[in-house]
């Protein structure tokens, strides 16, 4: 049903909020990445416009990037849990399910299977977007088991290495030695090896990154979604700093993300052969379509 699903009846249009009507009339639903992708963030009608996150929040930037990169926003459902990220995700013009603490991957398991049951001939993308606490701590069992069962959806972990929303407590993804609330003498254990765990649990496409390069980050998000549709569970472990709890001045947030790229968030991409085939096919098709469009435009001119 896609765009039709959000399109209001003409008679109701004048009573709906302006931003909703504009989203339907000029938004990214039903458009290609060329027309509405992250390269147009800021000038195109995006899926996340305003958000209540802190000034300089790197997570908010990455969440906008996720929504701008969706291959098919009109057929996408997102799921999340408690945490800062939820505040922005729940404002997006894409259905969002907020369940209980850390259960996003269990909910996504039921949702994805039920979608495939009801719509065997349609593509409906399911994406869980949650923080390091929700994905690797309280939701660890449900995250791992969804991967082990081979559930076909994408898990995106917004790793700010701390519980930002509850006031800065240590998480399993905090680096060893970090002095944080509930770790007054510094964190004792190591940062959890999330990408290793994902691969061991059967994820077929895994990326760890600090998303400083918009184009590359968008490509990774799309790859993860395309592969999840056909092959199996995919996982993106993205650094999305908490500039408040780690006292990163707003103007240095980007520099911090660049710095992290040199260390524990050095770009890492893993894919199975089957995943590689999907990526090559899809990106090949996109390239060909782009070329054809360019040629058609040249001919028209």
């Amino acid at each position, binding site marked *: 049903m896609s765009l039709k699903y959000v399109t209001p009846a003409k008679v109701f249009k004048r009573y709906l909020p302006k931003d909703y009507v504009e989203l339907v009339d000029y938004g990214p639903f039903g458009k290609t990445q060329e027309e509405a992708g992250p390269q147009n963030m800021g000038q195109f009608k995006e899926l996340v416009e305003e958000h209540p996150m802190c000034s300089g929040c790197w997570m908010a930037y990455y969440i906008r990037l996720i929504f701008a990169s969706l291959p098919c926003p009109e057929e996408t459902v997102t799921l999340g849990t408690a945490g800062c990220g939820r505040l922005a995700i729940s404002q997006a013009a894409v259905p969002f399910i907020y369940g209980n603490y850390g259960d996003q991957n269990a909910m996504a398991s*039921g949702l994805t299977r039920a979608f495939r049951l*009801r719509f*065997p001939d349609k593509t409906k993308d399911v994406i869980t977007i949650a923080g390091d606490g929700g994905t690797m701590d309280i939701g660890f069992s449900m995250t791992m088991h969804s991967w082990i069962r081979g559930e076909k959806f994408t898990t995106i972990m917004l790793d700010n290495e701390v519980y930002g929303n509850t006031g800065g407590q240590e998480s399993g993804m905090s680096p060893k030695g970090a002095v944080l609330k509930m770790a007054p003498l510094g964190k004792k254990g190591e940062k959890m090896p999330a990408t290793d765990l994902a691969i061991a649990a059967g994820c077929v496409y895994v990326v760890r990154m600090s998303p400083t390069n918009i184009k590359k980050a968008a490509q990774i998000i799309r790859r993860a979604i395309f592969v999840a549709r056909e092959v199996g569970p995919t996982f993106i472990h993205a650094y999305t700093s908490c500039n408040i709890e780690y006292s990163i001045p707003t103007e240095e947030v980007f520099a911090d993300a660049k710095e992290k790229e040199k260390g524990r968030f050095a770009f890492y991409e893993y894919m199975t052969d089957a995943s590689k085939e999907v990526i090559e096919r899809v990106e090949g098709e996109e390239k060909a379509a782009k070329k054809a469009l360019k040629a058609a435009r040249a001919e028209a001119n």
Partner: protein
Amino acid sequence: MSAIERPQPNKTKTFVDMDYLLHEAPREQHFITGAQAMAEAVKRANVDMAIAYPITPQSEVMHLVGDIYAQGHLKEYYRAEEELGTMSAIAGAARAGVRLFTATSGPGLLRGLEAIASWPGHRVPAVLGVLTRVVNAPLSIQPDNIEMAYLMHCGAVMLHAENQQDTFDMTLAAFAITEKVDVYIPVSVSTEGFFVTHAKGYVDMMSEDLAYKDFDSVAAPVPAMDNETPPARIQRDAPVQKSNFMSYLIHSVWQQEIWDSNRRAMKYIYQYLGGPIEVVNPDADVFVIASGCAAAQGREAQRYAEEENLNVGLIKVRAIRPFPIDEINAAVKNAKTLIVPEHNIIGWLSKEVKAAIPNGGIVVEGPRVYGGMTLPVELIMKEIYTALGLEYDLKL
């Protein structure tokens, strides 16, 4: 997205409404366990998806549901990671607009309770089997319905089955009740583990070629989040971060709506199950009021009393939520004593009955057994004799 290979049904089904299924369809008598009765109801309920996680004494139910999935009666079935994952997956699948079933017991119910408690607020129209057992510790797996006390304040509709026949009928009816537009909250069907789940009884069942008509997610009062069903369920102005005032206002209004939905389920309990209570000998001075297996023992006590020419009645409570306050008040308006036998230590039913009637002092709290013990009829008889001012020589 590719289709998933699923077992194909070996027979063509005839889809009918619940009134026909429960009240008109010819039935044949079978001698089966309570676990079988619940699974047979799931078979006829045309369930789309069941999610399983083992815990004794529930496991038998979900084993059997797995078997009927393999036979093609369900479209999807899997074993989840634990109870919280199970109940969360049910909540996720509900958003896609499918008919859902799962079951649990005792500690499993408590482990999944966070998600279950959110089902009504999420408007999850699922049926939950609760095959009761003790809550640890010390470890035991025996029957005891104390976990129902924890479930009572979640918002779900709660039915309590006395025997295998009730388990079958209530489970079937639960699917119709949960999907009603003016209800659309989960319905639980509880019965005592082992006493019912692992024991055989006579169950009158309609043909398995009959099935409850398909779940219509488009008719749901809360649209599925399938990007197909308008109005779009998107939120561009989430209340919680905009204003705490809006957040608690919306939440409090929603809680009221959930409990109103719960009350609205009552008319369907009448429609499908004949009402929330059953009254035997309505003119009695002394009533035994009980639910579940305790009602079966109460029924025996009433029969013994009748044989002994004692004017004793029985009120069997089928619905724990919505609690039949008006019906109980009407039934006991002339009663002098109400005896409430229970299979739990805290006496949640006697507390409910006491709170429901204006003269709570006439309630005898007990007898109670717990931890897996059986409830001897003689214990109830002793209370009956005491209530009538007679001596009773208790021999157990």
